[in-house]
């Protein structure tokens, strides 16, 4: 367990059954359902990368009863995990292209694995330029600080940070994410932008990107809905003819635009 922000922790899970651990594979962007037995179960994006004997990692913000219970657990506690579920970021399709990764607040959780996938030295040259824009309310709320150096030092990679409100030690940007997008003007040419964060931030960030010439099909995000079963039965995550747990959580905004409903 690692404190990421005052209300966000990174949980590392090791599977008890070695055979299951051995056979577990997942893709970037998939999610799993984590149980605190006696409290309940909730869906979280997997923040780690699939690697032999690596821990499963989840970045969890304290927002409700279940996340509260997770946050209060001690190192070494036993939780349950079901998964992996859902689709993934099509990383192979992104090869050869530039990437803009924009995360607001806890929206950085699913994006962390995207960034770590691209900056792996063995893989880095398969991708073009990488722009990471990580924003939060305050400097303390910026998640994954322990990895900023690794990200920023990767070739052809630019890490930009911004906060809504600075503090005495903050020397960086104080600006809203959409404004930073307008300032940095990433080129839509051969580029995919992945945006995750609160609905209001997504709305204005998409507008800024579209103004720069990004098409809906170049804009990718994760749809956050309530999920209970993870296997397309419980109906909680139904949006249009899609079940986010089966067909998502990763969608292009061209697909999201066809949902009829705003989610």
């Amino acid at each position: 367990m690692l404190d990421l922000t005052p209300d966000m922790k990174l949980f590392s899970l090791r599977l008890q059954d070695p055979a299951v651990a051995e056979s577990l594979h997942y893709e970037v962007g998939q999610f799993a359902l984590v149980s605190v037995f006696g409290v309940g179960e909730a869906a979280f994006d997997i923040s780690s990368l699939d690697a032999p004997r690596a821990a499963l990692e989840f970045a969890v913000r304290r927002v409700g009863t279940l996340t509260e219970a997770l946050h209060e657990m001690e190192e070494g506690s036993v939780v349950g995990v079901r998964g992996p579920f859902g689709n993934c970021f099509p990383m192979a399709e992104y090869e050869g292209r530039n990437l803009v990764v924009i995360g607001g607040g806890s929206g950085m959780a699913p994006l962390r694995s995207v960034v770590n996938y691209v900056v792996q030295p063995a893989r880095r040259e398969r991708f073009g330029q990488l722009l990471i824009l990580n924003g939060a309310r305050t400097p303390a709320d910026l998640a994954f600080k322990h990895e900023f150096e690794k990200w920023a030092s990767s070739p052809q990679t630019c890490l930009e940070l911004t906060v809504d409100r600075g503090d005495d030690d903050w020397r960086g940007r104080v600006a809203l994410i959409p404004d930073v997008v307008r300032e940095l003007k990433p080129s839509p040419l051969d580029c995919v932008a992945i945006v995750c964060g609160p609905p209001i931030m997504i709305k204005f960030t998409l507008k800024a990107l579209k103004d720069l010439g990004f098409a809906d099909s170049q804009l990718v995000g994760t749809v956050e809905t309530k999920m209970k079963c993870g296997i397309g039965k419980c109906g909680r995550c139904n949006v249009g003819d899609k079940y986010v747990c089966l067909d998502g959580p990763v969608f292009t905004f061209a697909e999201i635009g066809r949902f009829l409903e705003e989610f």
Partner: protein
Amino acid sequence: MTAQRITRQGLLDWLNGVAAKATLIAPVRVEGIYLFRPIVKIEDIALDYSQSTVPPKEWLFPRSDTLFTIERLDRAYELKPPAAAGPRVLFGIRPCDARALAILDRLFLAEPADNLYEERRQNTVLVGLACARQQLPECFCTSLGGGPQEAANVDVLLAGAGEAYTVTVATEKGQQLLSGATLRDGGEMPPAPSLSNQVPTAGMAERLRLAFNSSYWQRLADRCLGCKMCTYLCPTCHCFDIRDCDVGGHAERVRCWDGCQSALFTKLAGGHNPRASKAARLRQFYAHKYLYFPERFGVTQCVGCGRCAHFCPVNIDIRETLRDLQTLEVCPHGSGETARRREPVGAAFGDSRASA
């Protein structure tokens, strides 16, 4: 398919035999309504019942279902699955409710299958009871391709009333169940009852798409109370919640019915609710049945049983909504139409009501 006859007494004798080998679940009269309940005395079965208030789906997808019990051990948990369901005979199911189970099958049995539902489904024999009359004033099964004597979704269908029933054996499972019954040859299907409701359902998916942003939904939702009755009494609604709860000292993970008409259904832990208005939730009820489910599973998720219309405390009537949708002005997604439509709900019924 072969047709035979059974007398009322022969039927009761056979059911006595059935009840000795399996849990017999049939409609009984409780406080003036009909419910499917396990049968203790064969005479309790309401052979001439109209329609059950709660659909028999509750015996395959119960309102509360224990997924597993949780025992806390030292640094570990033991999860115990519930006891397996024994053999069951669901007797007296109406053709519409049987059709609804076939619709639920598409969802619950799609890979990965829902094992609790699947196990119960495999262990259940369906004995249908054809409708000798229109059961609810609001029912409209024939508008959706069903019928009061449809045998397609049951193992055995009984038709008739009073002293004799015509027996249609539809499956091998049904044939086996009937062994031991005193059947006579030469059963003839009684004439089908005439049903008063013809509701336009063709092209509804497209109508819903076109009317998606219509202020019609706001007007309809004006009188909606936001209870979950329509979804709980619907034989095809399948949404549920999964939570852990304390049961006498140990924890259980249970899944319980839940419905899209509750504001809490889509509300996220952080407080954001993508379906925050009654209008959006009511539209979801219709769109899921007539647009989304057909897109995904190829069938309309409604059998026209009429329960939602019949029991709605404020007369939100699916027949009326479907008719209105046929004539509704077009307000497709993104057209920016948000103004309150002046045309009230139910305009398709004409002025006769306004001057009543």
